[in-house]
């Protein structure tokens, strides 16, 4: 059955092509869009089970040779291993649930066909990204998901603000992508291949740990990863990306695309082991991002922006895990995060559906009774996000990362610091998550939900499945042993476990103290809160430092300063012409004088010469 691997990305791709080209009626379009991903999910299950049952550690499938130039022979070729199986499951499984949900969420939108076409294209590109056996094909998927992200953030294109958010997302990630492209160039120049297993094998034999080329390449690829995964210093695009429809936020900007950076580093983990400074940088980026995004989330009042910052923060945990070499813990968190964050976004979407797309939590309140499905989803998703001990999936994955940070540390960095960052982040997570839950769902109701029909099964089914996965998803076995090394080097004292476990609960308790009886009606607007709401000033800084100088320069040079040089040459010629033309007076006597004077001069010259 594994030979049917190619159908997994091909199905959503075919769906996308059909949706783009055929003018299907809306219902049929939505059906096709959901079905193609659904069948891909089934195929993933079948192929994955067959592969894992078969006992092989790797299955590769080469469809055709993409190009073949002087030893550079990337193929349109897939590589299936434990890591890819995990990613397949997340992408097609969660992807299918979100598509199903979207078939209700987008049911009223006249552009639903376009929506599902791009969503299918996204799933196809994401699958190519995780299945690619060479970095060039991976880059194709990488850019493809970026494009779909752009198209979906700006899906409601009539509002220029959405377009601006979409453009920002694409351009900021493209900065990372350019760095990543340079990384590929460097790797090819030194290793002569971009085929991932071969590249890693050659790197292992050619390079000692700390080899400059390995370090630079790892840093350049990290540039790509932080762009796509919205980590410091390129995290600013993700909160704005919430301009897109909520299923998009759930699928692309929570569950799948933004974790591509994590996947990339995990896939290339031997390279990072050869580049200790780069790996330390991964840990530092993760730790710093999870704290900064956690603080920023506290200042938000927009439900989706809170979740967006929390996504940035949680991916920070994954980076932290990668940085300390806890590869499988990072992947576990990737999976559980996909479950509970998708759940949270879908719950937020369910709220918005009934509140005329209201997203400000301080204008909600008391929704607990009116929207039970959304409430329970939000509560369970929030509990998993905050890491409520033992009963939620998020607890197990986050715990593993925080403890691994203590045990391993990153190259050159004491684990205690990273541990402290992780614990502080966990407390922040509890606080901001339950601030959202308490303010929006408890206390007095400020705005009543539209008395619409109850949600259909297309909404309730994804919510229930994701609720279940958010609770027990950590139990799903991850077949990563053959791919990722076991990363535990040290031990941790018992208190570290307790502190880490209770940090999230402490955050929830604090949230209860502050917001338990509902909010004061409106958010605080002190300078500190505004600073946090603005994402800690990064946007402001980049705007002053990069955007304005660049656009200013470009506008100043709009008429091309270099063309002035040629204008100058033309001007000189014109002036010279004018000077000569002035001598042509048209008067006979003037010409005669010229002839006479010239003759006299010639005679003088001849006389002087002889």
């Amino acid at each position, binding site marked *: 059955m594994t030979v049917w691997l190619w159908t997994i990305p091909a199905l959503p791709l075919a769906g996308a092509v059909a949706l783009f080209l055929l003018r299907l009626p809306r219902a049929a379009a939505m059906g096709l869009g959901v079905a193609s991903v659904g069948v891909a999910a089934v195929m993933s299950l079948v192929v994955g089970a067959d592969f894992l049952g078969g006992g092989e550690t790797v299955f590769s499938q080469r469809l055709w040779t993409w190009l073949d130039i*002087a030893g*550079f022979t990337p193929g349109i070729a897939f590589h299936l291993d434990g890591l890819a199986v995990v990613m397949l499951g997340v992408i097609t499984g969660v992807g299918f649930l979100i598509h199903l949900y979207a078939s209700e969420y987008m049911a009223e939108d006249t552009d639903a066909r376009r929506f599902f076409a791009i969503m299918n294209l996204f799933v196809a590109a994401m699958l190519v990204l995780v299945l690619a056996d060479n970095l060039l094909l991976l880059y194709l998927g990488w850019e493809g998901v970026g494009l779909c992200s752009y198209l979906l953030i700006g899906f409601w294109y009539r509002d220029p603000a959405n377009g601006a958010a979409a453009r920002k997302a694409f351009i900021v990630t493209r900065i990372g992508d350019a760095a990543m492209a340079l990384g590929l160039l460097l790797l090819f120049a030194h290793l002569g291949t971009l085929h991932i297993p071969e590249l890693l094998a050659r790197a292992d034999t050619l390079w000692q740990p700390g080899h400059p080329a390995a370090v630079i390449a790892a840093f350049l690829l990290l540039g790509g990863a932080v762009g796509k995964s919205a980590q410091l210093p390129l995290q600013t695009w993700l909160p704005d990306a919430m301009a897109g429809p909520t299923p998009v936020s759930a699928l692309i900007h929570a569950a799948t695309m933004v974790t591509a950076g994590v996947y990339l580093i995990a896939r290339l983990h031997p390279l990072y082991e050869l580049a200790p400074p780069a790996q330390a940088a991964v840990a530092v980026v993760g730790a710093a991002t999870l704290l900064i995004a956690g603080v920023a989330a506290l200042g938000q009042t927009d439900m989706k922006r809170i979740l967006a910052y929390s996504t940035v923060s949680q991916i920070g945990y994954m980076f932290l895990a990668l940085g300390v070499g806890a590869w499988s813990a990072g992947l576990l968190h990737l999976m559980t995060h996909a479950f509970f964050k998708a759940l949270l976004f879908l719950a937020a979407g369910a709220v918005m559906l009934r509140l005329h797309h209201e997203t400000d939590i301080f204008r909600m309140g008391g929704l607990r009774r009116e929207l039970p499905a959304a409430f329970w989803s939000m509560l369970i998703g929030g509990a998993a996000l905050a890491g409520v001990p033992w009963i939620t999936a998020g607890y197990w994955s986050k715990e593993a990362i925080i403890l691994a940070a203590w045990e391993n540390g990153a190259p050159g960095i004491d684990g205690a610091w990273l541990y402290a960052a992780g614990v502080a982040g966990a407390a922040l997570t509890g606080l901001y998550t339950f601030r959202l839950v308490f303010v929006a769902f408890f206390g007095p109701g400020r705005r009543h939900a539209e008395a619409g029909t109850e949600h259909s099964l297309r909404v309730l089914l994804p919510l229930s499945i994701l609720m279940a996965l958010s609770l027990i998803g950590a139990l799903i076995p991850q077949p990563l042993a053959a791919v990722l090394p076991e990363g535990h080097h040290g031990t941790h004292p018992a208190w570290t476990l307790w502190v880490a476990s209770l940090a999230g609960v402490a955050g929830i308790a604090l949230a209860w103290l502050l917001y338990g009886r509902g909010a004061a009606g409106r958010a605080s607007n002190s300078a500190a809160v505004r600073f946090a709401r603005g994402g800690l000033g990064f946007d402001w800084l980049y705007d002053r430092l990069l955007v304005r100088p660049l656009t200013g320069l470009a506008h100043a040079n709009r008429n091309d300063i270099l063309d002035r040089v040629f204008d100058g040459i033309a001007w000189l010629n014109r002036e010279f012409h004018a000077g000569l033309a002035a001598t042509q007076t048209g008067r006979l006597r003037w010409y005669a004088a010229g002839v006479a004077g010239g003759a006299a001069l010639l005679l003088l010259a001849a006389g002087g010469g002889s």
Partner: protein
Amino acid sequence: MLTALVAVPVIGALLAGFAGEGRGPRVIAALAMAVELGLCLALWLEAGPLFRIGGHGAWLAYESAAWIPRFGIDYQLALDGLSLPLLTLTAALGLVGVGASWTEIRERVAFFHANLLFALAGTVGVFLATDLFLFFVFWEVMLVPMYFLIGIWGHEGRTYAAIKFFIFTQASGLLMLVSILALAFLHADAAGGFSFDYFDLLDLDIGAPLATWLMLGFFVAFMVKLPAVPLHSWLPDAHTAAPTAGSIILAAILLKTGAYGLIRFTVPLFPEAALAFAPVAMALGAASIVYGALLAFVQDDLKRLIACTSISHLGFVLLGVFAWNPWALQGALMQMIAHGVSTGALFLLAGALQERLHTRDMAAMGGLAARAPVLAGFGLFFAVASLGMPGTGNFLGEFLALLGAWQASPLWTAISAAGLVGAAIYALILVQRSFHGEPPADLRPADFDTREIAMMGALAVALLWLGLYPQPVFDLAEPVFATLLTETRP
């Protein structure tokens, strides 16, 4: 066969020129280009065994006849795996150019199509000539009809643009003529007797300072045509003023003659001088990439924006050619073809918009996605292709050029990579300003009709094919680049 390639557009031009007004010239021109395309495809399919001429190259076809024997000037055409893809591009985009003029050109239709076909004939000759004198003749044949196309059927500012185009090209062409004549004289000194034969001149051994100067003569001519910073400023004006078909063949084909000349003449004729000059040329390439992008995204005029992106895109070609290794050369070739297709399509789109809206000012557009979804969909596709999206030929061109360039100069490659970001900025601004946003109430353009969908669709498919299964093109060009590399870098 090769003569037929040149003759078909010439005959087409003469017939169209005397076909009177109305549909006649259009049909004749379209037929001529269709026949031309058919010839190219036939050559592609029946590519025979490769052979060497004068000990050089890997050629597919060759024709030669004495022309002015007294000065060693021959009528000499040769075809290899480098010229064939470019000829195919010429024929295909020439056909698109005729299609683009179908409703746009309404005055002096016969003369218009005669000029169009003469320009194309000149281009075909440039891609085929292996006698430098003949090459120069074709080079000029290409120029004059283009001048008329811009000067007569252009938009506002056409006279200025046409003259600027003419002076830039002509002045730099004269530098090349000086170099060509110097080569012929050097051959007379060395072997007794003039020769303009490319294969004879390849064997010349020229001393260092002289070779550099002669190389620069060729380089400047091709660099103007490419165009590369700082000799690029004729291009935005010419494109803005030219009629749609003029813009299409200018961007898609004529610019490629510059790149072709660099690969065919500048480097092989003066390998050592070119090698020494490579760092400067690559720096110019990187400068073009960045500068073109910087110019592009602040333009209000749609055609001007697209023109500025050409500067940026062809910077990758310059970068790749002077990196002079298999990846970079293949990348440069792919970039030439893909840029021809994607930019041709974008100009087609700009022309269609101008025909409908009577403006090219993007400030007056917006929201077209709501009013003309098919048009906007194609616009989005080609804008995204032009920013180098993997899956289109543009990505492979840029990536391979960078891949090869990195091995020659990581510094300039890293700077060029900034162009990837710049491309995202200008392409997305184009999309935003023309297609997205709230549509103005009075903006109700007709969507694409079948003729336009067919042309755009064919170009889109070609671009995807180049991006996903490009190996036939690479295979065709591989022996050419392999022999060029071994001959120039022993």
